């Protein structure tokens, strides 16, 4: 098998995950994008491991470690999402703007959803 088959699939999967990370509003759907990106990296690790015939099986062992860390990450992230939902009754990540700059937020509220580019916010 040409090495490009798994590598290209992994690159495309990473792009799909990036899109989900930036475009989704629900925090759980953003997490799904992160999972897709982690899986793209895992495919690379396994492909390079088999290509190099590693006697230590580093790539596959690292893929297992990544899967473990992804499971831990999802557990903690869902706990955070549930805590946010309990406090704010929403998980829409573009509504959680308490740490944003007040001026920019006020300008954004005035102009609706579009960014206040060039507006006099000083």
């Amino acid at each position, binding site marked *: 098998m040409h090495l490009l088959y798994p590598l290209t699939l992994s690159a495309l999967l990473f792009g799909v995950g990036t899109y989900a990370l930036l475009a989704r509003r629900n925090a759980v759907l953003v997490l799904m994008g992160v999972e897709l990106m982690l899986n793209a990296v895992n495919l690379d690790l396994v492909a390079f491991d088999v290509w190099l015939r590693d006697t230590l099986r580093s790539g596959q062992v690292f893929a297992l470690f990544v899967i473990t860390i992804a499971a831990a990450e999802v557990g903690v992230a869902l706990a955070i999402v549930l805590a946010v939902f*309990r406090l704010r009754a929403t998980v829409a990540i573009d509504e959680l703007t308490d740490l944003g700059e007040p001026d920019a937020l006020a300008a954004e509220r005035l102009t609706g959803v579009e960014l206040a580019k060039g507006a006099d916010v000083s």
Partner: protein
Amino acid sequence: MTAAPITPVHPAPGYLAVSGAEVVFLLLGLVVLGAAVLCVTSRSVVRSALWLVLSLGGLAGCYLVLTAELVAVVQVLIYAGAVVVLLLFGLMFTRAPIGRSADVDTPNRPVAAVVGVAAAGLLAWLLVDAFRLSYLELPAAPTGTAEAIGAAVFRHYVLPFEVISVLLLAALIGALVLSRPDISTAEHR
């Protein structure tokens, strides 16, 4: 000092000579990619999670083609099983709308699409440029049997294994504290 050019023992077959494993991998890759695209574009959040199951399951098939048996099994068990169930649990618990909803995407969706396509294109171009001539000779015997991976983990990667077990414990306690309000705010009352 110049390194001698590496000449492969067997010249790699061209891209037009498609082997059986490549056909299987191509079909599985189409399933994985199609399910991933449907997962990130679906308007229904529950369907999105179910497309994710198909995508991650197809990826387990890709690992099997690459002869990484244990990683494929763990992928099905942890990802397609536990993680997606956890995500569905999170969706249900935050009272996500079951049917189609119009506002699952933020308004910066076109920018996100441009960034995603650019990232995928850049990565693919880089990898094609670097590994155009590399050929992965699939071994006859599986490289990733449970025996081989277990020996590698417990001989060479014992320390990372133990560190990861401590990390899992920390994540467990952290999730427990975060999801129980009576623990975290008990001192402030």
